[in-house]
């Protein structure tokens, strides 16, 4: 597949890793923000391919993981109503709420459906005027335009039985929070390529200037991430701190204007709580007043509910790059993808789930990082795979 295979080329990856090794003269701590990038790094063993001076820590960029607990509780409450059809992205069904999860609501007879796109929820609403159809609209800037478009379209058609339980989060305020944290160790960031496909990277250039930290917008394939790491190491070694764009085949400085326009029409910036992290100022989106009739929080009167997060899950520190998933005493014992304590173990992009799937054997036990897998295997390109 064009635009995928060449970015999984094992030979290119090996040489990029060698280039990074040649260039690095001291230790650097880098963070990839996006959970999709975490997944690629773990799946392809890129962390083990890098010289020991490069430490990768994993950021809070898994929307499923950081969607506040109370949003889950509200979704569960709404989905339990007899006249409601709750439509959700599949990842959200097994994320634990305070007492149960959406999967159990479905098992107990609730009408909970999985959709690939928010537009499918609109279709269900059109076809079933007797049902109140609610879409659980979560995500970062990547997903907000699609969710916003569903609401915009619903309003245009005058659909009265459709609403959205929306919880959208914005990435740059979270990076600012990390950089201002006294415990911050991160010296360079890989910015999320699909968030930036929508938003451009002007905000990241401002962060880079203000905090004197290099930021490289990165793609999602192994060669993308190795090139982004190579660009960060080059900046750090040369004492430069600018925003650069590795993922230029998809990302422009200004981003996608039509997508930004629909977000601005439907949503406005607000303070938001992040699961495992807490409140971050101006880090989310809420409906503009004109769209109140489509805001499920208002339609179902659940706007003011709050929830306390369980204390035994270390996800707060994992999501801020302060701890690795394997540092958690519950990791792979009391907390597994089948019985998760926290969201990072549920989502395919959660750091804990990525470590669970790809890193359960101790690194030292194998003696070397090449286990006959990519990129050490003789085949030059890896496609297909475990997903």
């Amino acid at each position: 597949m064009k635009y995928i295979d060449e970015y999984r080329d094992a030979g290119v990856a090996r040489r990029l890793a060698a280039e990074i090794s040649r260039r690095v003269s001291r230790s650097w701590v880098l963070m990839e923000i996006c959970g999709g990038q975490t997944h690629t790094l773990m799946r392809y063993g890129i962390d083990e391919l890098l010289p020991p001076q490069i430490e990768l820590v994993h950021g809070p960029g898994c929307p499923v993981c950081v969607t506040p607990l109370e949003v889950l509780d509200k979704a569960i409450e709404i989905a339990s109503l007899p006249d409601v059809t709750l439509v959700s992205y599949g990842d959200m069904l097994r994320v634990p709420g305070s007492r149960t999860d959406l999967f159990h609501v479905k098992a107990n007879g609730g009408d909970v459906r999985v959709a690939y796109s928010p537009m499918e929820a609109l279709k269900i609403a059109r076809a079933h005027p007797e049902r109140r159809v609610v879409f659980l609209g979560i995500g970062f800037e990547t997903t907000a335009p699609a969710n916003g478009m569903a609401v915009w379209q619903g309003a245009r058609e005058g659909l009265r039985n459709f609403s959205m339980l929306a919880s959208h989060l914005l990435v740059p305020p979270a990076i600012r929070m990390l950089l201002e944290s006294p415990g911050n160790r991160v010296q360079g960031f890989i910015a999320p390529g699909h968030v930036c496909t929508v938003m451009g990277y002007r905000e990241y250039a401002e962060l880079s200037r203000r905090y004197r930290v290099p930021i490289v917008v990165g793609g999602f394939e192994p060669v993308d991430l190795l090139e982004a790491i190579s660009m960060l190491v080059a900046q750090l070694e040369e004492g430069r701190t600018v925003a650069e764009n590795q993922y230029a085949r998809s990302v422009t400085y200004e981003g996608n204007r039509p997508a930004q326009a629909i977000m601005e029409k439907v949503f406005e910036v607000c303070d938001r709580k992040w699961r495992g992290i807490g409140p971050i100022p101006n880090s989310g989106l809420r409906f503009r007043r004109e769209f109140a009739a489509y805001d499920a929080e208002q339609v179902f009167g659940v706007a003011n509910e709050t929830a306390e997060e369980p204390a035994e899950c270390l996800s707060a520190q994992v999501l801020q790059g302060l701890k690795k998933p394997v540092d958690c005493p519950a990791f792979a014992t009391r907390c597994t993808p089948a019985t998760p304590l926290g969201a990072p173990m549920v989502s395919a992009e959660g750091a804990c789930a990525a470590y669970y799937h790809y890193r359960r054997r101790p690194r030292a036990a194998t003696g070397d990082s090449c286990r006959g897998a990519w990129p050490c295997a003789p085949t030059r390109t890896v496609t297909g795979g475990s997903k």
Partner: protein
Amino acid sequence: MCLAIPGKILDTEERDGTRTARVEFGGITRRVHLDFVPEAEVGDYVIVHVGFALSRLNAEEAERTFQLLEQLGVLEGEELNSAANGSSPENDRQE
């Protein structure tokens, strides 16, 4: 969650007042909304997320990446994967 994958536009069609396309992802075809990439045409590759195309892939920029790698010597002595120089038919494998 922010998973978005590249696919090729096979044809376009107006549906429910918006422009949509049939997009092929290595053998799998899906209907995709083009509201955010009005400039996209048949034959273009687009990055698709939750049923919406978010960008039209820039072939020149994609090539530039491999040119830069070549300058760095990263590709030296190893032939480029055929897809990178655009000369091969697509294969059907996909994630």
